[in-house]
C-alpha cells in the first residue's frame, strides 16, 4: 500500500468517525491525497471533478423523482394505496400485517422513498395493528423493513446513482431488474410475518373495502409507474424525461384532480426536494473527486486482485462482498455506501462474469437491510419514532425480518435470473 493511499484512508476514517458529513469527508480525503501526489493543481482538480460529476444528464432524474415522490406523498395517496392493499389481501388470516407490506410495495412503485413510506404508511398502519392486538414493536419492525422494498421496486433514485457510478449501465435495465427482487423481498417479509401470526395466534384481518372502488381510487396514482416505465420501455422518452413527466403528472393529480396540494405550498415542496437532491449530488460530486484519487492509486485493481486472490469462485467472492456490505450498511447510509463501494467492487465481480445490472440489485438489496439495522438505520429510527417506541425494544422484533431479507438477498445473489429475466425479456 502506497503512502498516499494510507494518508487517504486515515484522513477519511478519522473525519468520518467524528461525524463530519460524508460528502465533506470524501472531499477532504480527495484534497489530501491529490495534494500528496504533488505536481497537480489540487484545488482545480477537486472543484472540476465535483462540478463535472454533478453536471450529467442522467442525474437530472434524481431531483425529479424526489419531487414527484414528495408531490404524490403530500396528498392522500398512502390512504388510497392502503385501501387497495386491504381490498387485495386484507381478508386473509393475519391480513392486517400483509396489508402493511403490500402498501409499502405499491407505494414504492409510485414514490420510491422508503422514508416517505415509513412516515405516511406507518402513521396509519402502526396504530391500526396495535389496536388489533399486534405488538407495537412488531408493527414498527414490520413497517421499517417493508418500506425498503420501495427502493428496489422502480422508480428508484439509488439505481440512478448506481448506474452513473457504474458507468455504462442502463437505468431502464436496472429499473426492470428491480421489479421481481423487490416483490421477492416483500414476500419474504410477509412469510416472516406469517410465522409470527401463527406463533402468536393473532390472525387479525383488515376489513377489505370493495375492490373496484378501491382500485378506481388508487388507479391514478398507480398510473404514474405505468407512464414512467411504459414511456422508457416504449422509447418515448429517456429515464430523465420520464422523471420530469412524472413531476407533471404528480402536479396534475395533486393540484388538479385530488386538490390535495395548494399552489401556495409548491415553493416549499420545491425547496425540500432541492435540499434532498443536494445531499445526493454533493455526495456524487465529492465521490467523483475521491474516485479520481482512488483510480490514480489503482485502488480498484488492488482490491480486485486481493479479492480474486482469496477466491476465483463468484459464489465465494459474492458472499465475501455481501458480508462486507452488510457490515458497512449497519454504519453507513445507502447513497454514500453505493458511491464509495461500487467503483471499488464492480470491476472485480465483472471480471468473474457477474452482470453489472445483477450486481446493482445485489448491492441495493444488501444496503436496504442496513437501513433497518442499528447503529445507523434510517428506516428503523424513523419507524420507531413514528410508532412511539424505542430502538432497543424494536431490535429483537426486527431479527425475523432481518433473516427474511437475508434469505431474499441470498436468492437474489445466487439466482441471477430473478433480476435479469425481466430486463432480458424486454430486450434491455
Amino acid at each position, binding site marked *: 500500500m502506497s503512502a498516499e493511499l494510507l494518508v487517504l484512508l486515515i484522513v477519511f476514517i478519522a473525519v468520518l468517525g467524528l*461525524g463530519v458529513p460524508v460528502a*465533506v469527508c470524501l472531499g477532504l480525503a480527495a484534497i489530501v491525497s491529490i495534494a500528496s501526489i504533488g505536481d497537480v493543481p489540487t484545488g482545480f482538480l*477537486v*472543484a472540476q471533478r465535483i462540478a463535472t460529476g454533478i453536471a450529467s444528464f442522467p442525474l*437530472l432524474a434524481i*431531483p425529479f423523482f424526489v419531487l414527484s415522490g414528495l408531490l404524490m406523498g403530500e396528498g392522500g395517496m398512502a390512504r388510497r394505496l392502503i385501501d387497495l392493499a386491504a381490498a387485495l389481501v386484507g381478508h386473509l388470516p393475519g391480513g392486517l400485517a400483509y396489508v402493511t407490506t403490500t402498501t409499502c410495495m405499491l407505494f414504492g412503485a409510485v414514490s420510491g422513498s422508503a422514508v416517505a413510506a415509513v412516515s405516511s404508511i406507518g402513521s396509519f398502519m402502526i396504530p391500526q395493528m396495535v389496536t388489533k392486538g399486534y405488538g407495537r414493536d412488531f408493527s414498527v419492525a414490520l413497517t421499517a423493513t417493508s418500506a425498503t422494498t420501495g*427502493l428496489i421496486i422502480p422508480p428508484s433514485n439509488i439505481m440512478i446513482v448506481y448506474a452513473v457510478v457504474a458507468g455504462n449501465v442502463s437505468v431502464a435495465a436496472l429499473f426492470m431488474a428491480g421489479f421481481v427482487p423487490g416483490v421477492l423481498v416483500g414476500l419474504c417479509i410477509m412469510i416472516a410475518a406469517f410465522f409470527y401470526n401463527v406463533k402468536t395466534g393473532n390472525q387479525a384481518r383488515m376489513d377489505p373495502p370493495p375492490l373496484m372502488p378501491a382500485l378506481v381510487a388508487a388507479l391514478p396514482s398507480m398510473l404514474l409507474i405505468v407512464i414512467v416505465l411504459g414511456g422508457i420501455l416504449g422509447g418515448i422518452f429517456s429515464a430523465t424525461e420520464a422523471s420530469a413527466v412524472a413531476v407533471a403528472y404528480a402536479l396534475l393529480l395533486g393540484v388538479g384532480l385530488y386538490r390535495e396540494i395548494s399552489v401556495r405550498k409548491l415553493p416549499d415542496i420545491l425547496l425540500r426536494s*432541492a435540499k434532498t437532491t443536494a*445531499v445526493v449530488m*454533493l455526495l456524487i460530486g465529492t465521490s467523483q473527486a475521491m474516485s479520481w484519487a482512488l483510480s490514480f492509486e489503482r485502488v480498484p485493481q488492488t482490491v480486485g486482485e486481493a479479492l480474486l486472490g482469496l477466491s476465483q469462485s463468484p459464489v465465494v467472492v459474492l458472499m465475501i462482498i455481501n458480508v462486507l456490505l452488510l457490515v458497512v450498511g449497519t454504519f453507513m447510509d445507502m447513497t454514500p455506501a453505493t458511491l464509495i463501494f461500487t467503483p471499488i467492487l464492480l470491476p472485480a465481480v465483472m471480471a468473474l462474469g457477474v452482470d453489472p445490472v445483477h450486481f446493482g440489485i445485489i448491492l441495493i438489496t444488501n444496503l436496504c437491510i442496513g437501513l433497518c439495522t442499528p447503529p445507523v438505520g434510517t428506516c428503523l429510527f424513523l419507524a420507531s419514532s413514528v410508532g412511539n417506541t424505542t430502538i432497543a425494544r424494536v431490535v429483537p422484533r426486527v431479527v425475523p425480518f432481518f433473516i427474511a431479507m437475508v434469505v431474499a438477498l441470498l436468492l437474489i445473489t445466487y439466482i441471477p435470473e430473478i433480476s435479469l429475466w425481466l430486463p432480458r425479456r424486454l430486450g434491455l
Partner: protein
Amino acid sequence: MLSRVWNLAVRGLQLLTIALFAALVVDVLWGVVARYWPGIVPSDWTEELGIYLLAWVSLLGSALTYREHGHLGLDYFVTLFDPAAQRLTAIIVELCVLVFAGYGLCYGGYRLVADTLASGQLTPVLQWRTGYMYMSVPISGAFFVAFAIEHLLGRPLPSRPVEAAPSA
C-alpha cells in the same frame, strides 16, 4: 441589523434555489413537449440548460442543507462521547467543512472558473461560457464558509430534518 441582512441573504438564496428548480422542471418538460408537439422544432438546448441548472440547484441547495445540518454523517460514535468532547467534536466538524469549502470549493472553484473563462470554452449548443456553470462551485463554497462561521458563532438553528435521508 447585521442579522437582518443575513436573514435576507439566506432567504434570497432559498428563493433563488426554488426559482432555479422550477426552471429546471419547465426546461426538461419543454424538451419532451418540443419533441412530440407538431409544429415545434425539437430543441437540443434543453438538455444543456438542464445540466447547467442542475449544477446550480445542487450546489446552492447543498449549502442551504448544510446550514440545517442536513447532510449525511456518521453521528453514531459522537453520541458515545461525553458532552465536553461532543462540543469539541462539533467545532472540529465545522473546521473540517471550512477547510473543504475554503480550499476545495472556493479556491479550487475560483481557479476552475478563471481557467475555464480564460480558455473561452463554450457549451456546444447554447454557446454559453462553461465557466458560468462552474461559478456555482465557488459561490456555494462561499455560502458553506459563511454557514460554518455561523455555526461556530453558535446561533440556534433548526435541527436535522427527517427528510434529509436522500434516496432512502
